[in-house]
């Protein structure tokens, strides 16, 4: 790919948020958008994620975002001209404590009031939704059939291919080493392959976004923690049709259309050392969770385990805004484990914000200023 030393906008990071904002800028008419990725597109957190998409949230903002995301994914293959592997088989939320179930019931009321028709379901209904599931120790469930998952690789590559058709340039194996700022305005980037001058630079660097922000002199409170995941060999469909998710049980588990079953949990101690290893402790722990929930799965083989980094913020909600002191420097990061499902909508919203000055879905409350002002947006429904 030929190297050009100027661009209208430079996007740092080739994960879902980077490719989504780049595609949407081009769609809104921007001619010269460049995406810089230090490894290859979808090699970081997006390509390592659990791939879930849901609108079963506990804050109004997230329910609205979630619903917009479900609707976006429902037409995304058509918009991008490539199958993104959407599979809507629902999320079955499992509560093991009374207070947890009360919270889920509150969430359902909120979701229903916003037009997302989640239901409270009984043990028998839960067993119908997920045959063979062992949940006698649970006390309640909620289910929404429109939740589901998509293929993170195909989704990201679909954005990349659609972006290329609109003239977006993608440079892989290109690491940003500095951000040029001149009199409180962003002027471009320096990279391992040369400089690019641009009046707009977007930080979509996922787990490394706090370091990229610092290159422009912007301090954000983000930190990154490692989460692990396992996947099994493909087996006949029907072993775990919905996403089984529990906040107190600390797990998520789902069979993909392809037949393999994927499972993960929130790690103890939240390792934040930027390594991406896989541990025996997790493999053993997750296998126990798996076989306890789905006893008949004990003969299914694990083929792979890996880890990825969540870019966390103090309230586990993303930062989407223009930097206060550096005009033209935008941030879209800190998704705290939900970047894949939100990316298609937040990328569009940020592109609209940049070009039109306003977005269909409001993002003003997601400025990082909220942390200094104490206006946190705490979300109760997070694994």
């Amino acid at each position, binding site marked *: 790919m030929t190297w050009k030393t100027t661009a209208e906008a430079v996007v740092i990071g080739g994960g879902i948020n980077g490719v989504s904002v780049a595609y949407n800028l081009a769609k809104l008419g921007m001619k010269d958008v460049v995406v810089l990725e230090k490894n290859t597109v979808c090699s970081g957190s997006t390509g390592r994620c659990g791939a879930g998409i849901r609108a079963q949230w506990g804050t109004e903002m997230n329910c609205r975002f979630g619903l917009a995301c479900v609707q976006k994914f429902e037409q995304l293959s058509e918009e991008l001209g490539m199958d993104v592997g959407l599979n809507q088989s629902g999320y079955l939320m499992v509560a093991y404590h009374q207070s947890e179930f009360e919270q889920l019931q509150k969430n359902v009321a909120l979701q229903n009031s916003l037009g997302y028709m989640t239901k409270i379901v009984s043990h028998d209904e839960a067993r119908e939704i997920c045959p063979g599931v062992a949940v006698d120790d649970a006390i309640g469930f909620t289910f929404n059939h429109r939740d589901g998952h998509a293929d993170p690789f195909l989704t990201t590559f679909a954005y990349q291919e659609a972006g290329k058709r609109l003239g977006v340039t993608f440079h892989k194996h290109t690491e940003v080493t500095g951000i040029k700022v001149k009199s409180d305005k962003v002027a471009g980037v320096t990279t391992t392959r040369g400089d690019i001058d641009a009046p707009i630079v977007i930080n979509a660097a996922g787990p490394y976004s706090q370091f990229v922000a610092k290159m422009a002199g912007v301090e954000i409170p983000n930190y990154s923690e490692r989460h692990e995941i396992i996947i099994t*060999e493909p087996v006949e469909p029907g072993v775990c049709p919905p996403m089984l998710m529990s906040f107190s049980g600390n797990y998520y588990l789902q069979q993909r259309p392809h037949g393999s079953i994927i499972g993960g949990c929130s790690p103890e101690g939240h390792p934040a050392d930027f390594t991406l290893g896989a541990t*025996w402790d997790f493999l*053993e722990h997750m296998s126990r969770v798996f*076989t306890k929930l789905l006893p008949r799965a*004990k003969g299914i083989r*694990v083929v*792979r*385990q890996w880890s990825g980094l969540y870019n966390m913020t103090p309230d586990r909600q993303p930062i989407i805004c223009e930097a206060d002191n550096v005009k033209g420097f935008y941030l879209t990061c800190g998704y705290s484990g939900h970047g894949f499902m939100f990316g298609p909508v937040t990328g569009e919203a940020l592109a609209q914000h940049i070009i039109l000055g306003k977005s269909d879905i409001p993002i003003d409350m997601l400025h990082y200023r909220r942390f200094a002002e104490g206006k946190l947006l705490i979300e109760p429904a997070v694994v």
Partner: protein
Amino acid sequence: MEDKTKDIIVCRCEEVTMGEVREWIAKGYDTFDELKRLLRVGMGPCQGRGCREIIMREISRAKGIPMAEVEPGTFRPPVKPVKLGVLAKGGDN
């Protein structure tokens, strides 16, 4: 002349053909890991034992670089498929 090699299955676990691999290499997906994410080559039960070298050779040919310079991609544990029930019993047994 029609290319008869394009229908050859290079990844038997995921049934991916030589033609598909070549098509995506030509579009710029010219590392093993990118092809893996896109086509699932190397994600099946054999974890790339069958297809990895064949695909690396295609990358080498398309890019005009020696095999030794083609990145083999990531190898992930547990290397060999292991039953959940065995893993759940833990390491002491």
